[in-house]
């Protein structure tokens, strides 16, 4: 990474906005932007280089109104770089990004709600002040920014709130200006199951009301919440479709035995990497007869089962040469 990230902001809009632009900037929070036929967000052949390394390589991506698209990938796969280009924070090296039918600009940013991984809150402002500040920036109504469920925390400094509550505040902030496109970077990291279900409830409602949602997650169980998945590895899209389409009819070999620890060692010695689930072993990438042979005379039940999305994901992405992981 010899070149600093981004040569300034990629916004193309001139400072002196047209009446139309000014009107949109002042759009009250309760109102969605003009309907756009076609994609809310669209990337066509988007490539981003940093010096000689390619972070994003010829990516096509589309998010339509009313859908939730899951963007999956290992760290360093290029997800964050792609999101930064959608936000207009980073220019593309090649290809085209279009938001609501136009290039990324200050005006398109007004219509995007963004929840960064790091939440992006001011620790030394209260929850209410954070939301009011954001509402003011987006030209919304600052008096009704805080949702009822968060009011008990409204007057406390964000830095003093538990992480789970901070996450809900950041989420409310991303939604406060009724964005047409919602971009969420690992929105449910470190959240308990019930709270996670409730965050997804809000995401689902936002999509049902017509917004488009692009969400990254490392938690494969959440892929079921997404209408479509896009899997990236090494800067490229390596698979796309529904979870069922991506998993397909891929199978994994399952070993059940009382002596799992011994079986684990025997398989490893044979070069077969097994995953432990309870006391059963799952061996991706080796058919049952190969596994049975490797186990020799061991007393074990060997069968086949459908692959989980996580296993399939690993199979797809590990076949791509992994470049340096970036934190």
């Amino acid at each position: 990474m010899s070149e600093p990230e981004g040569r300034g902001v990629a916004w193309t809009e001139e400072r002196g906005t047209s009446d139309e632009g000014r009107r949109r900037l002042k759009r009250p929070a309760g109102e969605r932007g003009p309907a756009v036929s076609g994609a809310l967000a669209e990337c066509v052949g988007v490539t981003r280089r940093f010096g000689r390394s390619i972070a994003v390589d010829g990516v096509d991506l589309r998010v339509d109104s009313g859908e939730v698209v899951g963007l999956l990938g290992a760290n360093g796969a290029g997800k964050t770089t792609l999101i930064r280009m959608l936000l207009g924070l980073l220019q593309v090296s090649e290809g085209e990004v279009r938001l609501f039918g136009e290039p990324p600009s200050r005006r398109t940013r007004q219509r995007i709600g963004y929840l960064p991984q790091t939440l992006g809150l001011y620790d030394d402002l209260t929850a209410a002040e954070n939301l009011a500040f954001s509402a003011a920036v987006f030209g919304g109504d600052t008096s009704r920014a805080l949702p009822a469920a968060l009011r008990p925390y409204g007057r406390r400094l964000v830095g003093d709130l538990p992480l789970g509550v901070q996450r809900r505040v950041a989420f409310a902030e991303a939604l406060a200006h009724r964005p047409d496109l919602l971009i969420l970077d690992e929105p449910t990291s470190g959240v308990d199951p019930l709270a996670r279900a409730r965050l997804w409830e809000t995401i689902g409602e936002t999509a049902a009301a017509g917004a488009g949602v692009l969400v990254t997650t490392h938690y494969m169980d959440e892929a079921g919440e997404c209408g479509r998945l896009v899997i990236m590895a090494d800067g490229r899209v390596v698979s796309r479709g529904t979870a069922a389409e991506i998993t397909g009819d891929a199978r994994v070999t399952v070993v059940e035995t009382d002596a799992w620890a011994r079986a684990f060692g025997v398989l490893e010695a044979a070069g077969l990497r097994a995953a432990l689930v309870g006391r059963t072993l799952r061996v991706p990438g080796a058919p049952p007869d190969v596994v049975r042979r490797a186990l020799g005379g061991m007393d074990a039940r060997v069968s086949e089962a459908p692959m989980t999305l996580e296993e399939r994901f690993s199979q797809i992405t590990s076949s791509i040469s992994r470049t340096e992981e970036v934190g």
Partner: protein
Amino acid sequence: MSGGGTVSSDQAVSGDWWGTDAVSVWYGKVLALDRVTFRAAAGQVSAVVGGDGAGRTTLLRCLAGALAASDGEIRRPAARRIGYQPAGSGTYPDLTVAQNLAFRAAVYGVSAAGSGADYLERAGLAAARDRLAGRLSGGMRQKLGVIAAMLHQPALLVLDEPTTGVDPVSRIELWSLIARAAADGAAVVLATSYLDEAERASHVLALDAGRELAAGTPQQIVASMPGTVRVMDARPAGDEARRAWRRNARWQVWAPDGRAPADGEPVQPDLQDAVTVAALARELAMSGNRQ
């Protein structure tokens, strides 16, 4: 630090499990753990599940010997036979990967050469031996932290959220390390907020606000769930809305025992459903008490 709790070490007790018996921990006036009992058996992975503030870290610190209990009994091996990875990886940022392991090995009087190299290979870290730990990605640093904690083949391996925020590929590598430690006979205790991960453990303790929400094998927790769960396409109305949650873009609805089940298709609940039901039941009971 002194507390009212008692500690048994392996000199005093024989047996093949470690854990806590009705342990409570107060931080000033805040009750962080409320009479929590937990068992971690040798050669098995046990999971402690919960969100931020549930009490997972407090319980793990008690097990690792980093915190005294205010009340109750803790049973753990001697300090030299415990491996502990605190939340946030527990590595030295200014040392390289290899130096981190060499230092740990020296502290415990073991060699980092044999098993260390095997673990690095297993974790996909072999090529990063000479990089500073502080320059690793989050996932790589977590893997290094787990390796450093298990290098001396501890009897009890305590890992505080090793997989939070870690990508799926690194997660699989982390689980390979965890399986290796359990196969070598360690009692592995792992804190996580992911229920699919807890489902892979032999024993699970779900915590909420410092109290046990559910405990047992994943199968036992599911079997002891009260009532029934059904799935619907749209969010139910009225009273049922309070017992519904979103999952896989549909709605799961819980009907407690003795309550007419909701419309929709019955589902065979899994661990995620069972723990969510336990959390809902507690929430509903608390809101009932307030009214």
